[in-house]
């Protein structure tokens, strides 16, 4: 499903060169639930951003669903992200000016989906995360856990094959974190979604199929 080959990411300024990722080789199969762990600054989020086509590697090849993504033009990258990937971020990244339902509809906005169909699918996604009673609320009227559930609904509404979660429980207390983890596990088991999750929490990582550890930009296990 996902194949990374010799991935390297280097950040350069006029005087300093920082290696964020060094020779990463990684394969994730369809339906896998993989977690990535490592200390802060080891390159976990950078790796997730490269898998999510939000950032480009300095070297190496990215292949997702049999498609090489290096050098794709902006419009094709956008289309690919829209069809194949769903994102969940640590700080939720909801659009505060839009109500919950409109936030969840967002990925469908960039597909040819009618307004009524968008409403239906977004409502269904919110039901799956137990938030059907908060559709007309605005993000700043919700708790952290509720916001993350909205973010999950947004990530799954377009039924992407891959969900990328960057510390989805990082801003939540343990109870909320477990609730979110339950939802992700269900998505993986019931809907066969491939999930890659960056986390700092060993307990959360234990609930996934496989754990990848990074240290100083290199894969150590």
């Amino acid at each position, binding site marked *: 499903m996902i194949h990374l080959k010799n991935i390297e990411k280097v950040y350069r300024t006029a005087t300093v060169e920082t290696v964020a990722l060094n020779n990463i080789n990684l394969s994730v199969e369809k339906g896998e639930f993989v977690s990535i762990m490592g200390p802060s600054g080891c390159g976990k989020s950078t790796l997730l*951003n490269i898998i*999510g086509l*939000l*950032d480009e590697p300095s070297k190496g090849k990215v292949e997702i669903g049999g498609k090489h993504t290096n050098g794709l033009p*902006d*419009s094709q990258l*956008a*289309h690919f*992200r*829209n*069809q194949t990937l769903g*994102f969940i*971020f640590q700080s939720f*990244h*909801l*659009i505060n*000016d*839009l109500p919950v339902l*409109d936030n969840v*509809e*967002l*990925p469908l*906005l*960039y*597909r040819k989906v009618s*307004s009524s169909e968008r409403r239906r699918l977004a409502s269904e996604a919110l039901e799956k995360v137990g938030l059907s009673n908060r559709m007309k609320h605005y993000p700043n009227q919700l708790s952290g856990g509720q916001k993350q559930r909205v973010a999950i609904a*947004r990530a799954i509404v377009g039924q992407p094959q891959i969900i990328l979660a960057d510390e989805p429980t990082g801003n939540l207390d343990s109870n909320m974190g477990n609730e979110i983890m339950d939802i992700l596990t269900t998505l993986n088991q019931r809907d066969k979604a491939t999930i890659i999750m960056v986390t700092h929490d060993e307990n959360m990582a234990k609930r996934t199929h496989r754990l990848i550890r990074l240290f100083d930009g290199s894969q150590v296990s």
Partner: protein
Amino acid sequence: MLLNYLKITFAVLQRRKFFTFISLFGISLTLTILVVATAFIDHLIAAGYPEINRDRSLYIWNVKEKDTKNQGQSSGPISFSFINTYVRSLKTPAKIAAVSMPSTINIYLNNHKLNVRYRYTDSNFWEVTSFDFLEGKNYTEQNIANNDYVVVINDYVRDEYVGKGQPAVGKMIEIDNVNYRIIGVVRGCPITRIHVSSDLYFPYNTSKADLKKVELRGNFAAIILPNTPSDIPKIQTEFNVVASKIKLTDTGDKWFKPDKLYVSADSYITSFTRQFKGDGEDDGVGYFFTIVLGIALLFMSLPAINLVNINMSRIMERASEIGIRKAFGASSKTLVMQFVIENIILTLIGGVIAVFLSLGVIYYLNNSNLIAYIDLSFNWKVFSVAIFVSLLFGLLSGVYPAWRMSKLQVVEALKN
């Protein structure tokens, strides 16, 4: 998608009310000035009371003689004899009217001085124009033949002279030590109707000047009304033939011996624009409208640049939203479209405010007596210009910030 854009636009407008106020203030004020200016230009150019035939009339009022050897030239309004000799010889027109340039004179009424404008005209003047006679009638060819000392006054003079709404026809009025019988009272027209507005209209027989004197230049203009608008080119060609045979003035001055003459029968606007460009061989209409458009664009560009600045800072505040939209499938092109549409919505709101402000300003100008009798109107022509200008303004101020913003890297945008 448009509904989504609308929602986000209104949400963003509400979020930073001061920015919104500054933006809308700049847009609506600029558009108001442009709309009022358009209404004024329309008022100046288009047909209107009492020149309702202006669109299908021709005007001859300026003649220029040039000494190409000594680089001298002389130009000014045509004479009454010029009209009689050269213009009235045309076969195609339905009517040819002669009207003098306006002059001012003081008249003394009930111990107070009234400074008024007056013109001399022939009887055809009343046929090529459409004055509303509140009382009485115009003078005729018979009055002129009889050398009657009669005058047509406007309602302003009537109100000052005999009292508001009081009958004036038949009364005598002394002007410059000569008594005239008031024969008619017309509803006045604004000074901006350059060839016809006046307070007093005298038949040309009462003029103290020697109108029979043969000379090219004088103090008159000719208004030519064709039978049908399709006759206009025919009349122009016919007049050009006549003009080519006009004998140049023998000045007897060795420093100024004119060898070339420029005079033409033009539409109202061209009769002015021709004066702007060179010797008058070019009609100058394109030149005139290029200048007007240039000034309008220059005028618009200042608030547009300001709006670009405001938009840049507003858009940068929305970096996170841009990152989110990109992450979930929005391409740069889609985002440019979104932000341009948002900006157009903002400027259209400004446009709507400007329409109401313009209506207020036009109402004020029409009723304030700043320019007597002015009748500016907010018509569809003006409204279309307002909409067009709003859209142009939206595009001008929206495209660059939208393009800059769409180039943001997703990861960088999400970090905000």
